[in-house]
C-alpha cells in the first residue's frame, strides 16, 4: 500500500515534464523524420540527394571547416580568460567575470549586430583605419566567412569558459606547490602540470562548442550575408525560400545522428552541471 502510493507520487512529480517533452518534442521530431522519407515522394530520395548534391556537400564541408576553426579559437581564448577568472587577484577575477557574463547574457542578435557595427564597411574599424589614412578602400571583414568565424568565436567563448574554469577550480593546490618545491619554473608548471590537469575540461568544452557551432544559425546568417551558408541556414532556406521540406528534414535527421554519435563517443567527458557553471 505504501509502496504503491510512493510510486504514484513519484510518477506525479516526474511525469509532467516527461510527458510535456514527449508530446511537444519527441513526437514532432518523429514527424520530421517522416517528412524526410515522404516529401516530396516516398523513398530515400532526399538522402540520396544529400550524398550527391554538390551544393549540399560544399555546405557540409564549409560547416565542418568553420566549426573546427571556431572550436580551436574558442578553446585558446577561453582558456586564457578562464585562468584569470579562476586564479587572478580579486579585482582581476571581478573584471574577468564581468567580461565573460555580460556577453553571455546578451542576445545573439545584439552581439551579431555589434559585430556588424565593428566590421562592416562603414563600421568602427574601417572608419578608423580610413580616417587614419591607413587604407583607402574598406576591408571586407563582414558578410563573409571571416565575419562568421569572428562572430561565432565571440558567441561561444563563455560556453567554453564554464567547463574549463570548473576543471581549473578542482585542481589540487598541493600538486602545484610540489612542482614548485622541486624547482620547476612557472612556465614549466603551467605547461607540464597545470594544463594536463585540465584536459578533461578542455575536451568537454571543445565538444560543447563544436556541437553548438554545428547547429548555428543566427550569427552565420547575419555575418555571412548569404555568402557563406552553413548547414543550419541551408535548412532554413530549404523550408522558407525554396520549399523543399524533405531535404530540410533529411539534413536535420543527419545532424541529429551525427551529434548523437559524437556525444556517445565522448560521453564520459560531459557533465550537465558544467554546461551552465
Amino acid at each position: 500500500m505504501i509502496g504503491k502510493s510512493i510510486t504514484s507520487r513519484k510518477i506525479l512529480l516526474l511525469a509532467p515534464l516527461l510527458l510535456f517533452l514527449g508530446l511537444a518534442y519527441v513526437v514532432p521530431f518523429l514527424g520530421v523524420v517522416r517528412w524526410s522519407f515522404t516529401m516530396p515522394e516516398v523513398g530515400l530520395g532526399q538522402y540520396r540527394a544529400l550524398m550527391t548534391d554538390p551544393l549540399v556537400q560544399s555546405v557540409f564541408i564549409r560547416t565542418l571547416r568553420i566549426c573546427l576553426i571556431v572550436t580551436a579559437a574558442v578553446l585558446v581564448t577561453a582558456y586564457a580568460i578562464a585562468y584569470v577568472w579562476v586564479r587572478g587577484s580579486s579585482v582581476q577575477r571581478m573584471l574577468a567575470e564581468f567580461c565573460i557574463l555580460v556577453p553571455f547574457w546578451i542576445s545573439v542578435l545584439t552581439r551579431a549586430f555589434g559585430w556588424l557595427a565593428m566590421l562592416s564597411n562603414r563600421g568602427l574599424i574601417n572608419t578608423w583605419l580610413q580616417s587614419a589614412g591607413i587604407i583607402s578602400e574598406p576591408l571586407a571583414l563582414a558578410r563573409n566567412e571571416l565575419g562568421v568565424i569572428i562572430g561565432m568565436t565571440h558567441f561561444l567563448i563563455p560556453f567554453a569558459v564554464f567547463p574549463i574554469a570548473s576543471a581549473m577550480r578542482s585542481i589540487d593546490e598541493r600538486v602545484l606547490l610540489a612542482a614548485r618545491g622541486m624547482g620547476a619554473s612557472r612556465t614549466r608548471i603551467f605547461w607540464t602540470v597545470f594544463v594536463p590537469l585540465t584536459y578533461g575540461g578542455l575536451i568537454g568544452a571543445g565538444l560543447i562548442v563544436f556541437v553548438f557551432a554545428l547547429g548555428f544559425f543566427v550569427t552565420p546568417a547575419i555575418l555571412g550575408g548569404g555568402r557563406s551558408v552553413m548547414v543550419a541556414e541551408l535548412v532554413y532556406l530549404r523550408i522558407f525560400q525554396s520549399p523543399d521540406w524533405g531535404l530540410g528534414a533529411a539534413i536535420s535527421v543527419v545532424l541529429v545522428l551525427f551529434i548523437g554519435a559524437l556525444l556517445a563517443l565522448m560521453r564520459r567527458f560531459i557533465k550537465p552541471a558544467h554546461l551552465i557553471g
Partner: protein
Amino acid sequence: MSSSRPGPVILIVATAVALFLLMPLIAVIPVSFTPARFLSMPSGTLSLRHYQALIDNPAWGQSILLSLRIGILSSAIATALATMFGLGIWMFQPRFSALLIGFVLLPLVVPPVVSAMTLYFLMTTLSSFNSWIGYDTWLGVALAHAVMITPFAVVLILVALYQVDRRIDLAARGLGANLATRAFRIIIPNIKFGIATAALLSFVLSWEEIGVTLFITSVNAITLPRLMWMGLRDNIDPAIAAISVLLIVITAVILAFRIFIDRRRTTDPL
C-alpha cells in the same frame, strides 16, 4: 599561492580576450547616435533620432510587450515543470535517473535548427486543430519557448538540489513529515535561490530566443528579437543599435551589481 597567480603573458592574452568580448557591445554605442539612416559611425553631429524612432514606431512597444508576456508564461511553465522533475529525481532517486535527465536535456544538445524544424512541425500540426495555440500565435511561441528553455531550468535546479544536505530531509522524514511537507517546507525553501535563478534565466532565454521563433512566426507574433531580425537582414536599421544599447546597459548594470554583491559577501570574512 603566488606561484599560481597569472603571469604577464597570460594576463596580456586574457586582456585581449576581454577586449574582444566587450568590443562589439561597445561598438553599437556610437552607431546608435548616428544621424544617418544607415549603419555608420557618426561624423561630427550626434542624433537621438533612432531612440526617438523606438518611441514613435508602435511596433517596438508592441513587440516588447509580447516578448514580456511570452517570457513570463514560458518561464513559469519551464520552472514549474523543472522543479517538479528535480524534486522527483532528488527525493526518489529512481532507477535510470541518468537516462531520464539525459532525455530531458535533449532540446539543449540537439542543434537549434533541428529543434526549430521540430517545433515548426508541431505548430503547423496544432494549427490544423485550433486557432489558439499553433503557428504564428503568442501561445504557440510560449509553448515552443517552454520546450527550449526547460533543460536549462532543470540543470540549474538539479545543481541547487545536489547542494542540499540529505540529512535534513531524513530528519524531517524521521519526525514523521509527509511528502508534501518535506517538499514544500524542507526542500523547496532550501533551493529557493536555485528556483529563482532558473526562472530568471528561463525568462531571459525566452526574451532573446530567435532561432525557433523565426521558424514558427510570420506576421502576428512578432517578438522583439523577431522584429530586430527583420531590421538586420537586408538594409540595417540603426534603430537596432538604439534598442541594443538599451538592452546592453540594462544587462551590464544588473550583472555588475550582482558580481559586486557576490564578491562582497565572499570576501568579507577575510
